[in-house]
C-alpha cells in the first residue's frame, strides 16, 4: 500500500475498527483500539495535508471506476485541513476518555460507545473527504445516526429526549440534502461534485437547480445549527456525556460548515450563490442574529454546558458571517475559525468535564470555589474562555482579527458592530463563570484540593496550549486556510 491509498485508509480504518470494537466487548481493549486507529488517522491526515500542500489535489477512485461514474475521493487543501482538525480533536478526546468516559458510560456499554464513536468519526471523515454528493449523504447519515446514539448514552435521562429531537431534526436535514442531491442528479445526471461544478454554471436559470440549492442550504443549515435551526444543539450538547459533547462540539458542526463552504463555493460556485441568488443577505442576517441571540442567551444559562452550546451557536454565526462575505479574506477567517473554535470548545468542554466529575455537576453554582480546589483545571477553563472571547495571544483573537479585517474590506460597518457586541457578550458569560470559580467560596466548607488526575489534565492542556500556540504562531493555520480559500475561489490548488 502506497501513499496513494491514504484517502481511502483515512475513512476505512475507523470503519473497520468500529465492528472490531463491537466484537472486543472489553471497554479497555476497545478504547485501546480506538485510540490507535484515531492516532493513525491523525497521521494519515497529516501526511495527506503535506502531500496536498506540496503536490496539489489528490484523487482516489473506488473500485477502479473513474469519476463521474464511480465514487471518487478528492483531497484538496480545504478538506485536508478539516481532516487534520477532526482527527486531532478525536485523538485528544480519546486520550481523555480512557478515564473520562468510564465515569458516565456503564462498563457493559463501553465497547458499544467506542463503536459508535468510531462510526461517527468515520462518517465525519467520509463527509469531508468524499467528492461524491450521494456518498456525502451516506456518510452524513453514518455520522448522524451514531451521534444520536452517543448523545443518548449518558446517565442523564434528558439525553434521550435531546437525542430524539436531534434525530428528528437531523433526519429532516439529511432528507433535505438527499432531495437536493436527487434534484441535481435529475438535471445534470451526475453525482460527482467536480462534475457538478462543471455542469451547473450552464444551468443557472434552471428552477430545479434553485430548488436544490434551497433544500441544500436549509438541510446543511440544520446540521450546522445555523440560527434559527439551532434549537436541537444546546440540549444535545448539554445532556450528552461530557466527552461526547467535547467531540461533537469540536468536530460535527465544523464538518457541516465545511460542507456548506464546499457546496457554495465549489459545487455551485460563488457567482451563482452570491450573484444570482440572494444568499448573501440571508447569511448575513442569520449569522448576525446567531451571534447576538446565541451570546445573549448564553449569559442567562444556569448550566454551563448549555451556555457553551449557545456560545457555539454564536461562534457558528461568526463562521457564517465569514462565508457570507464572499471574499478570500472572509473565507480564510471562517476556515481559520474552524480550527480555532474546535480547539477552544474542545478544551472548554473537556475542562468542564473534569470539573463536573470532581464537583458534582455542570451548573454554575457547582463551580463555586473551583479555583482553589482545582487550580489547573480552572486555569485551563480561563484560558479557553479568553480564547472564546478573542483576547490577544489566543487563537480566538486571530480568528476575530481576520474576520474584522475581512469585514472592513467589504465596508460592512453594522457587521463590525455585531462582532464587537458579540465579543462583549462573550466577556459577560465567561466572566460569570470566572467569578464563580475564583470569587465565590464553595458551598461545602472543606476546601481541600480536588485536582483531577493528570491523565485528564494532559489532554485538556494540550488543547489549551494549542489555543495559545495558534494565537502566537499564525503562519501555519492562516497560511493553510488562505491557500484553501484561494483554491475554493478557483485559484490554483
Amino acid at each position, binding site marked *: 500500500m502506497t501513499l496513494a491509498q491514504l484517502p481511502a485508509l483515512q475513512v476505512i480504518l475507523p470503519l473497520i475498527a468500529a465492528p472490531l470494537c463491537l466484537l472486543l466487548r472489553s471497554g479497555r481493549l476497545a478504547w485501546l483500539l480506538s485510540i490507535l486507529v484515531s492516532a493513525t488517522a491523525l497521521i494519515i491526515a497529516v501526511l495527506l495535508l503535506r502531500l496536498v500542500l506540496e503536490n496539489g489535489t489528490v484523487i482516489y477512485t473506488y473500485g477502479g471506476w473513474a469519476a463521474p461514474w464511480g465514487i471518487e475521493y478528492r483531497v484538496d487543501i480545504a478538506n485536508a485541513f478539516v481532516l487534520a482538525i477532526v482527527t486531532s480533536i478525536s485523538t485528544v478526546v480519546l486520550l481523555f476518555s480512557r478515564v473520562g468516559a468510564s465515569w458516565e458510560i456503564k462498563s457493559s456499554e463501553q465497547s458499544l460507545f467506542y463503536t459508535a464513536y468510531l462510526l461517527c468519526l468515520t462518517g465525519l471523515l467520509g463527509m469531508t473527504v468524499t467528492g461524491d454528493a450521494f456518498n456525502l449523504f451516506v456518510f452524513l447519515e453514518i455520522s448522524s445516526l451514531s451521534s444520536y446514539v452517543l448523545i443518548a448514552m449518558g446517565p442523564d435521562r434528558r439525553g434521550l*429526549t435531546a437525542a*430524539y*429531537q436531534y434525530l*428528528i*431534526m437531523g433526519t*429532516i436535514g439529511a432528507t*433535505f440534502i438527499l432531495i437536493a442531491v436527487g434534484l441535481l442528479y435529475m438535471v445534470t445526471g451526475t453525482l460527482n461534485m467536480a462534475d457538478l461544478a462543471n455542469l451547473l454554471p450552464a444551468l443557472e436559470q434552471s*428552477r430545479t437547480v*434553485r*430548488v436544490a*440549492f*434551497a*433544500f441544500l*442550504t*436549509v438541510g446543511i*443549515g*440544520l446540521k450546522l445549527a445555523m440560527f*434559527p*435551526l439551532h*434549537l*436541537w444543539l*444546546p*440540549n444535545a450538547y448539554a445532556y450528552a456525556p461530557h466527552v461526547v459533547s467535547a467531540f461533537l462540539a469540536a468536530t460535527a458542526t465544523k464538518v457541516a460548515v465545511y460542507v456548506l463552504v464546499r457546496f457554495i463555493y465549489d459545487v455551485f460556485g460563488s457567482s451563482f450563490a452570491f450573484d444570482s*441568488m*440572494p444568499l448573501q443577505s*440571508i447569511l448575513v442576517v442569520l449569522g448576525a442574529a446567531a451571534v447576538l*441571540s446565541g451570546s*445573549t*442567551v448564553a*449569559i*442567562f*444559562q*444556569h448550566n454551563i454546558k*448549555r451556555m457553551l452550546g*449557545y456560545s457555539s451557536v454564536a461562534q457558528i454565526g461568526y463562521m457564517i458571517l465569514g462565508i457570507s462575505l464572499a471574499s478570500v479574506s472572509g473565507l480564510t477567517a471562517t476556515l481559520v475559525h474552524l480550527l480555532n473554535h474546535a480547539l477552544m470548545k474542545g478544551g472548554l468542554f473537556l475542562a468542564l468535564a473534569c470539573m463536573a466529575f470532581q464537583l458534582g455537576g455542570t451548573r454554575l453554582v457547582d463551580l463555586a470555589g473551583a479555583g482553589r480546589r482545582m487550580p489547573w483545571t480552572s486555569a485551563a477553563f480561563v484560558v479557553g474562555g479568553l480564547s472564546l472571547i478573542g*483576547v*490577544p*495571544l489566543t487563537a480566538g483573537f*486571530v480568528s476575530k*482579527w*481576520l474576520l*474584522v*479585517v475581512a469585514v*472592513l474590506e467589504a465596508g460592512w460597518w453594522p457587521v463590525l458592530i455585531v462582532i*464587537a457586541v458579540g465579543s462583549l457578550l462573550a*466577556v459577560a458569560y465567561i466572566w460569570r463563570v470566572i467569578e464563580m470559580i475564583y*470569587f465565590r467560596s464553595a458551598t461545602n466548607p472543606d476546601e481541600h484540593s480536588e485536582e483531577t488526575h493528570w491523565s485528564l489534565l494532559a489532554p485538556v492542556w494540550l488543547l489549551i496550549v494549542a489555543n495559545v500556540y495558534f494565537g502566537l504562531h*499564525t*503562519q501555519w493555520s*492562516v497560511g493553510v486556510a*488562505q491557500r484553501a480559500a484561494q483554491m475554493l475561489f478557483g485559484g490554483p490548488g
Partner: protein
Amino acid sequence: MSSLPPGLILILGGLVLPVLPRSVQAKGALVLPVLGLLQLLFLSEGMSVDVEIAGYSLLPVRVDKLSLVFGYIFYIAAFLAALYALHVRDTTQHVAAMMYVGSAIGAVFAGDLITLFVYWEITALTSVFLIWANRSERAYRAGLRYLVIQIGSGVLLLSGILFYFHESGSLLFTQLIGPGESLVTAGPGVWLIFLAFGIKCAFPLLHNWLQDAYPQATITGAVFLSAFTTKLAVYALARGFPGTEALIGIGVVMTLFPIFFAVIENDLRKVLCYSLNNQLGFMVVGIGIGTELALNGAIAHAFVHILYKALLFMSMGAVLYRTGTIRASELGGLYRSMPWTAAFCIVGAMSISAFPLFSGFVAKSLTMSAVIEGYYVLTFIGLLVASAGVMEHSGIKIPYFAFFGRDSGIRCREAPIHMCLAMGIAAVLCIGIGCFPDLLYALLPYPVDYEPYADFGHSLTQFQLLLFAALAFAVLLRMGLYPPEQNAINLDTDWFYRRLAPNVIHSITNNLANVTDRLTATTRLAGRTLMRSVIRHYGPEGTLARTWPTGSMVLWIAVLLAASLVLYFV
C-alpha cells in the same frame, strides 16, 4: 539574550514564581528586575526584531532612546517596589506584579500597534490582581470597575488600530499625526487611539478610575500601580502624539482640577492619586508643546515622577502597614514613631514640589522653559498655580497630616527594614538626580543644553513660590480657615456610573409610578418591561433558550425553506 524581547524575563519569571516555595517568591521577584535591567544594558539602540504574521509585518521589539529611558526607569521602579514588597507572602501579588511590569516594559519597546495593544491589555489584566489581592468586597468592586475601564481602553485602542490600519495601511507605532495635521482633521482611527491613550493617561473626565481603584490596592500593590500604567500612557502619547496642540489645554486642566479635590480628600493614598493625576498634566503639556526641549521635559518628568511618587506611596504604605489606617483625620504626630519614614516622605514631598536640588526641579524646569520659550502665557500661569497646588497637597499636606500636626496618640514601630531600604534608595536617587541633573539628561531622547542651576534667579523664584505657598498654608492654619479633615468621601466622575445611572433607572420607574396611583402597578411594570422582555426572550426559560417542542422546530425549518425558496425565485 539580546534577541529576547525586553520585559519577557519578568513575564516568564512571573509565571515561574508559583513553582518556588512561598518564602522564596518575594526574593525571586526581587532578582527578576535586576536580570531585566542587565538585559536592557546589552540592548543596542536602533535594534529591532521584525516578524511577519499572517501577511502583516510586525515589529515586536524596537529599541530607541525613548524606549530605553522608560525601560530603565521601569526596571528601577520594579526593583524598588519588589524590595518594598519583600515581606509579602502572597503568590498572586508577586506573579501579577511581575507580569504587570513585564508587559508595561514590553509595551514600551513595542514597535507596532498590535504588539502594543497586546501588552496594553496584559497590563490591565494583571494589574487588577494587585487590587483584588486586598480580598475585600470593596476592593473587588473597585477592581472590577478598574478592569472594565482599562479593558475598554484596550478595546478602543484595538478598534482605533483597525481603522488606522484601514486608512494608512501601516501598523507601525510612530507619530500618528503628521507634522502639518491636527487632531481635528485626523481620521476616526487616530481619534480612537487618542481616546484609548487618554483613558489610560487619566485625562480630565476620563480620570476617575485612578482615584477609585488605586486606594483600594494592597499596600505594595499601590506602589507598583503608581509607577507603570499611567506612565505607559505618557510614553504612548510621547510616541504617537508629540506636538498635538490639544494636549496643552488638556494637560493644563489636568494639572489644575485635581488639586482642589486633593485639598479636601481624607484618604492620604487618594490624595496621592490626585497628585499623580496633576503631575501627569505637566507631562501632557510637555508632549503637547512637542519641541525637543518640551519632550525632554515631559520624559524627564515621567522619569523622576516615578521615583518620588513611588517614594510617597511607599511612605504612606508604611504608615498604613504600621497603623492600619490612612485617613488624615486619624493620623498625626507619627514622626516620633517613624522618624525614618517621615524623613523619606519629606524628601519625596520636596522632590514632587520641585525644590531646587531635588529631582522634580530639574525635570519640571525643562517643561517650564519650553512653555516660556513657546510663549504660552496662560499655560504658564496655569502651571504656576498648579505648582503651588502640588506644594499644598503633596509637599505639605501629606507629610504634615501623617507625621506632624495634631498628635493622634498612635505609637507604633518604625517601618520594616526592607521598606526603609527601598524608600532610602528612592530618596537617594531623588536627591542625586536633583544635584547632578546631567545623569538624567544623558538618558533623554534629545540632546540637552540646559543647565537648571546656571541661572540662580530661577532657583530663587522657585524658592519664593514654594515658600510663600507654605506661608499661605501656615497662615490658613493659624486663621483656622484650613478645611478640617473629615471622615467623608468626595464625589467625582465615578458618581455618574456608580450612582447616577443606577438611580436614573430606579427613579424613572418610581417617579412614573407616583404620577397616578391607578397606574402605579402598570408603570412599574413598564419601567421593568425592558429587563423583563430581555429575560423573557433570553433568560434561562426564555423564548430563545427554552427547549422547544419538536413540532415547532420543524415549523421553523418549513418557514426557512419556504422563505429561501421564495427568495431564490424572486
